[in-house]
């Protein structure tokens, strides 16, 4: 009984709003820090790849965005499950706040992949399994955004969107394993990197960049969720107090 | 016994009503009143469990309907402002299919009987899309002739009916109350229900 109370308390917007406000600067700082370190290693320190030349440096964006596009979807599905199971107000907002960032990550993954494909494979696009499933992931994001935008009642929109997220989550493992299931043009897992002598530097660069993108996504999503909270809870006392306060500061 | 406890209804930005409570016993009719947009339809949809109330609880025989949906729905007959009839099917087919989907058994003879009572004799085999508005409403109402479930919830049942049909329906509701049934009803037309206890509730 007590646990549940605490869970609800944490999930209550009134508690979460100021907490999120305090966390955002930290995540921004971490994102910048990791970003600078990652770019330094990736762009300045890391040597060239013997097969791909300097073109391979796209990896430092391509892989983090690809990872995050999938990861954010999983997180949204997690929030959706929580929301449907416990009917918490926060979870729907979280899913919605993450969706645009996830969609952008999917877009960036496609964009950087396309720019990488032209020099490496000689074409902007091939209908290979991984590329295609990443494209589907983008469609799933857009479908989610379109669905929640089409339903005016936010509570209903969140629930319907949640069901869609849970149904669509099957696509994520498909993207991840697509390289194994179909033999295709796209790179397999990082094993081939481990063979080369430069592997360690590259891996570090990639990891740092991934961390940076991750922190960035959290910061943006938290900022977005704060706005959503104000919007949706505008009739509660705490939002009124918050609005008064922000008036004094200006 | 149907109990509503401290119900609050919010649609969009608007709080339609709050702190609404009532109890309804066997043989009683609750006659909901209120101007257009007061929230009568919204209240009925709460009572049938399709619209969760913002605050408050609804209990049937002492148990919250949110937790005992199937039992509650087995005891409930709802007639909304939509007729729930298929335009392609004939009145007879509509009546039979409706009963079967509601989990009841209904013989064809009984169904024909019911249709005759609502004044559709001779039109049992005409697709409903050819019927007039009042006749369509009558097809929907034919269910009430044979329905023996204890709780009836009726949203503006008299709409589109002619004078004769209004009297007939008032009689059907009376008979239901006398049998020990309960009913919740809205209507803007003043209609006299001869039997049972009528309790009025005004919202908004």
């Amino acid at each position, binding site marked *: 009984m007590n646990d549940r109370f605490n869970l609800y308390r944490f999930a209550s917007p009134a508690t979460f709003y100021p907490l999120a406000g305090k966390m955002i600067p930290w995540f921004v700082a971490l994102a910048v820090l990791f970003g600078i370190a990652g770019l330094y290693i990736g762009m300045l320190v890391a040597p060239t790849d013997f097969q791909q030349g300097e073109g391979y440096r796209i990896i430092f964006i391509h892989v983090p965005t690809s990872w995050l596009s999938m990861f954010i979807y999983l997180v949204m599905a997690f929030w959706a499950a929580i929301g*449907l199971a416990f009917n918490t107000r926060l979870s729907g907002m979280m899913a919605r706040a993450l969706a645009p960032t996830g969609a952008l990550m999917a877009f960036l993954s496609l964009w950087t992949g396309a720019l990488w494909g032209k020099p490496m494979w000689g074409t902007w696009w091939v209908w290979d*399994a991984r590329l*295609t*499933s990443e494209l*589907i992931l983008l*469609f*799933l994001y*857009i*479908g989610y955004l*379109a*669905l929640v935008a*089409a*339903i005016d*009642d936010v509570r*209903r929109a969140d*629930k*319907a969107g949640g*069901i*869609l997220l*849970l*149904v*669509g989550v*099957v*696509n994520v493992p*498909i993207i991840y394993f697509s390289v194994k299931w179909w033999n295709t043009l796209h790179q397999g897992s990082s094993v081939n990197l481990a063979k080369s002598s430069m592997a360690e530097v590259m891996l570090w660069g990639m990891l740092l960049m991934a961390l940076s993108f991750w922190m960035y996504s959290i910061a943006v999503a938290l900022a977005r969720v704060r706005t959503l909270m104000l919007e949706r809870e505008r009739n509660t006392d705490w939002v009124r107090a918050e609005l008064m306060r922000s008036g004094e500061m200006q | 016994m149907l109990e509503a406890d401290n119900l609050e209804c919010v649609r969009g930005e608007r709080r339609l009503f709050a702190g609404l409570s009532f109890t309804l016993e066997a043989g009683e009719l609750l006659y909901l009143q209120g101007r257009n947009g007061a929230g009568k339809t919204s209240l009925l949809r709460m009572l*049938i*469990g*399709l*619209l*969760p109330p913002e605050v408050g609880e609804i209990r049937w025989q002492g148990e919250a309907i949110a937790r005992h949906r*199937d*039992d509650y*729905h*087995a005891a*409930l007959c*709802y007639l*909304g*402002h*939509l*007729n*729930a*009839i*298929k*335009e*392609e*099917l004939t009145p007879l*087919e509509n009546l039979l*299919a*409706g009963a*079967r*989907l*509601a*989990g009841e058994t209904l013989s064809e003879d009984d169904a024909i009987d019911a249709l005759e009572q609502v004044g559709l004799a001779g039109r049992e085999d005409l*697709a409903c899309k050819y019927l007039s508005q009042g006749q369509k409403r009558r097809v929907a109402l034919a269910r009430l002739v044979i329905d023996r479930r204890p709780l009836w919830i009726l949203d503006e049942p008299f709409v589109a009916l002619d004078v004769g049909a209004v009297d007939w329906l008032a009689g059907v509701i009376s008979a239901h109350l006398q049998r020990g049934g309960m009913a919740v009803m809205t209507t803007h037309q003043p209609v006299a229900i001869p039997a049972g206890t009528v309790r009025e509730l005004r919202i908004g």
Partner: protein
Amino acid sequence: MLDIVFTVIGRDLKLAMRRQADIVSALFFFIIVVSLFPLGIGPELDLLRQLAPGVLWVAALLATMLSLPRLFADDLRDGTLEQLALSPHPLGLVVTGKVIAHWLVSGLPLALIAPVLGIQFDLSGDALFVLTAAILLGTPALSGIGAIGAALTLGLRGGGVLLSLLVLPLYIPVLIFGAGAVDATVSGLGGEGHLSLLAAMTIAAIGFAPWASAAALKIALE
């Protein structure tokens, strides 16, 4: 318990018969779309043979999808859906019935006509057989997944197109394995693996989709 499933199937089939258009039309849509391609692409048989599995499957997807918006919309508009939600049976079973009826009207006929269309594309006997089996195994999954999309977009204006946006991405695995089965047969690899994957998808979809749809329907009714 299963009574309600059969009742729903019976009712939906009767409605489909009464409307007539329903049954033939999904089929004719399929036939027309398949026949459009040779017109847009040209008559070379070699090329067409390569295209056949893909074209037939895409057409099957679209034909199934086309009838989805009306899966629940008619029932919503005339109030039947409210009554179904109020019936003492689990809504998931009602939806199961509707999904099966949808497949009988829109999926099964496709499987029956597919071999004929396959001949137009000069497919071999083996390939025709696998094509039919694949469509037979895959289309129930399409109906099931489609029901979720139909329920989610129910009552939204412009829902028909939104529906396709939601559903088509989820159809893609079925498309890939369905077309892959025929391709594999043509290239001599044998399509059994693909077919069993299709069967697995269909079982998963039929078991799971009605309950997801039922949840979505309850939301739409609020």
